[in-house]
């Protein structure tokens, strides 16, 4: 793949990217969230058919127009979310779309036999007549690989294949990758886990912000250097300079009025934020979305946030940070463990309603799916969380709602033709402002912001940063999840790093540095050894 460019509307996501995979090698594609890895893969897989640049497979120029087309060209992608159909048998899945037939009737026994052969080649001993849904994720992944092999794939792309696997399963996958290499397959491997890169990579290509940063044999790219490539600057001294913080002079202005001067914070690694009183304390918190007997999404997390403090939470996909927020917000009902203290009183938040009553607000990371009701008006959305308060006798008071919504809209600097406009017609940035405005109505004590600036333009981002500083100034404790490193470093007073549901590091504002955070988020920090 050479000179690949791709843009969505006005935003360019890939600019002149290249990727070369040789047969019989494992080529790791590395980069932070949003670096453009998955877009590149989607182009190769035929999901995005409109791109600039060229793709050559075995010397022939190709242009995959659809996933099926890509399959015919010998490209198989094993996505994070597996693309198998749970309610069909293993054999049906392997031969989906190319079922062996005679006169239109499926030759079940032939299909069965062929499928069994492919599956056995992977050292998998399963009945191919059973439904895919009965098997574990690890087995399903192997079935997907069997499907790829049966399609005679030359290039197999694996997008974070180990995210749902346990240690022995990972070993099995790695052994399989070795045998795939021996067969002459080229493997593109995407992962966030440094130890995996160190183990299996032959060569590494690094992307950052949609740009090609470099390609090197794994032996020439040790982990620290790789992280530098991913983050984008050389680390010359252990103490990081805090360039991005100084870029934001407003920061100092806002907190200049805070009781604790910023210069006094961070000594001896103590969690000292601005403001004073402890607002939220969480002890030994665990979240078990699938019940207590299953693997938890969050395990034994303890932290506290002061009034007026912004606690940044960093973590890669699968870190459990979003689940932590949902758990604190009562979304998992009683499937949580541990204690939550709000203003030093122990609270039990077993439902979003209870959390809202207690003054906890959650901005979810997907405004369209979980944040807004797109078919309702701005007023209806903005007042949804506080509607009980706005209609004390049950009968709604449209005048009061409009006044409240207008107040919140002007606080958020929302631009809309009319407050009766359906939220679905607003731009992404304005939608996000409505999603946030909803929570101002309940006058929160704790704001949980999960990716508050995802998918919005730079102007709206700046406004939201500004608002966050104002809220902190008003004494609201803010917890912030963001995958954008500059955002995290600029806004956070302290940073908590999560990896696989556990807290792997905590940094004060002074200590925080991108490479340290990324290392901890990948689970390579010292603290992770105890797992």
């Amino acid at each position, binding site marked *: 793949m050479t000179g690949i460019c791709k843009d969505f509307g006005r935003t360019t996501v890939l600019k002149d990217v290249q990727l070369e995979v040789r047969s019989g090698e494992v080529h790791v594609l590395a980069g932070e969230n949003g670096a453009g890895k998955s877009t590149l893969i989607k182009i190769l897989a035929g999901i995005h058919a409109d791109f600039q640049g060229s793709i050559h497979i075995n010397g022939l120029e190709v242009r995959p127009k659809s996933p099926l087309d890509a399959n015919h060209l010998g490209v198989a992608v094993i996505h994070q979310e597996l693309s198998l159909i749970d309610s069909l048998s293993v054999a049906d899945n392997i031969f989906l779309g190319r079922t062996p037939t005679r006169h239109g009737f499926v030759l079940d026994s032939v299909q069965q036999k062929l499928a069994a052969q492919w599956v056995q080649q992977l050292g998998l001993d399963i009945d191919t007549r059973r439904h895919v849904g009965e098997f574990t994720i690890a087995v399903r992944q192997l079935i997907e690989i069997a499907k790829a092999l049966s399609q005679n794939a030359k290039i197999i792309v694996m997008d974070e294949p180990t995210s749902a696997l346990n240690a022995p399963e990972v070993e099995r996958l790695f052994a399989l990758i070795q045998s795939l290499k021996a067969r002459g397959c080229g493997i593109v491997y995407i992962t966030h886990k440094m130890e995996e890169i160190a183990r299996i990579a032959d060569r590494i290509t690094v992307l950052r912000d949609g740009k090609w940063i470099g390609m090197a044999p794994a032996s020439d790219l040790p982990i620290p250097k790789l992280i530098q490539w991913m983050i984008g600057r050389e680390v010359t001294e252990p103490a990081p300079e805090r360039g991005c913080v100084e870029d934001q002079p407003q920061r100092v202005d806002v907190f200049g009025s805070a009781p604790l001067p910023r210069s006094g914070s961070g000594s001896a690694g103590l969690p000292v934020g601005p403001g004073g009183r402890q607002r939220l304390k969480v002890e030994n918190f665990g979240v078990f979305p699938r019940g207590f007997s299953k693997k938890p999404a969050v395990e034994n997390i303890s932290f506290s946030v002061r009034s007026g403090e912004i606690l940044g939470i960093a973590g890669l996909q699968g870190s459990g940070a979003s689940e932590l927020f949902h758990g604190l917000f009562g*979304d998992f009902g009683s499937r949580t463990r541990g204690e939550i203290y709000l203003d030093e009183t122990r609270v039990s938040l077993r439902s979003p309603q209870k*959390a*809202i009553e207690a003054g906890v607000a959650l901005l979810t990371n997907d405004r369209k799916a*979980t944040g807004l009701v*797109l*078919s*309702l008006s701005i007023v209806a959305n903005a007042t949804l969380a506080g*509607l009980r308060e706005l209609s004390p006798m049950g009968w709604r008071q449209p005048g009061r709602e409009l006044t409240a919504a207008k107040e919140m809209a002007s606080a958020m600097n929302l631009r809309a033709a009319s407050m009766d406009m359906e939220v679905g*017609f607003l731009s992404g940035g304005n939608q996000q402002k409505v999603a946030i405005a*909803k929570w101002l109505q309940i006058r929160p004590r704790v704001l949980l912001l999960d990716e508050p600036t995802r998918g919005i333009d730079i102007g709206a981002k700046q406004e939201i940063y500004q608002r966050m500083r104002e809220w902190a100034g008003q004494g609201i404790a803010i917890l912030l999840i963001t995958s954008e490193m500059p955002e995290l470093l600029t806004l956070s007073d302290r940073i908590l790093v999560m990896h696989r549901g556990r807290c792997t590091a905590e940094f004060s504002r002074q200590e925080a540095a991108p490479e340290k955070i990324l290392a901890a988020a990948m689970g390579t920090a010292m603290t992770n050894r105890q797992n």
Partner: protein
Amino acid sequence: MKKNFTSPAGRAFLALVLVFIIGSIFNADGAFFKLGTHRDTLREMSVYGILACGMTMVIISGGIDLSVGSILALAAVCSAKMAIHWGYSGWLVLPACLIIGGLCGAVSGFLTARLQIQPFIATLAMMVLARGLSKYASGGMKVSTAIANPDGTYRYVNVPPFFQDIDHRILGGSFSVVTLIFIACVLLGWLLMSKHRVGRYLYAIGGNEESSRLSGVPVVGTKIFAYAMSGMFAAMAGICQAAQEQQGDPEAGVGYELIAIAMVVIGGTSLMGGRGGMGLTLLGVLTIGYLDKILSINAVPEAGRLVLTGIIIVIAVLTQRRRRT
């Protein structure tokens, strides 16, 4: 002005006007212009209309209620039993039947909201169950003014005043009481949907249940309320039906749920939930009610009426479809 005809209300109104124009042209030798025709049309559509009110609430919440026809039968049987056989006063029969209907609805609501059974399945089960209950309560026979004695003979009782009051005409015979009840139901439904918090919650749940839950909307309680209201409206319709027929028929109301759904959809309420309203349903009820009447006064046989109604539902829904932007 142009905007008004692209809004759901505008289009539903246009459809109704169209039906009236058709009625004026094919007026069956002036029958369409007689007051009595309109009085009867309104009376005949009232039972369906009452069902459609409850159905609107459920559909806006993103669900569907297939049990209303059976609950109608159960309420008809119960009210006939109480009013005719046992001679209870209307002041007892009315609330008792409403509670029975409300309970049935609340059970379907509980099944779908709390136990997460799909609304189609949950209310299908209630449809069968309520039909069974109505047959059990009636012993499989119509509950009428002819009461079987133990020795096999029949004795006859008078139609109770409660039923007479409901099957009455007011304003010099120009308006039926059941139509009045229907209008009251529309009004109640409109108040709840447009003026009460619960209505906003129902729109929100139908629009995006997950967002609503995460905004603190009491999703389970609100949904149960919607199904309970639908059950209560169905019970009211059952009482009206029993009063008009002067008997409680355990086989009554078969297929009524589909007519009610058609009325709601023709009004422009989205089956996907989150959009629509009680006013639209009123327009839908009038449209189907008048259409049926016009076809019948023009002596179109039932077979033709059903085929035409089916075609018109499709056309109406096609024109109601929102353009994606």
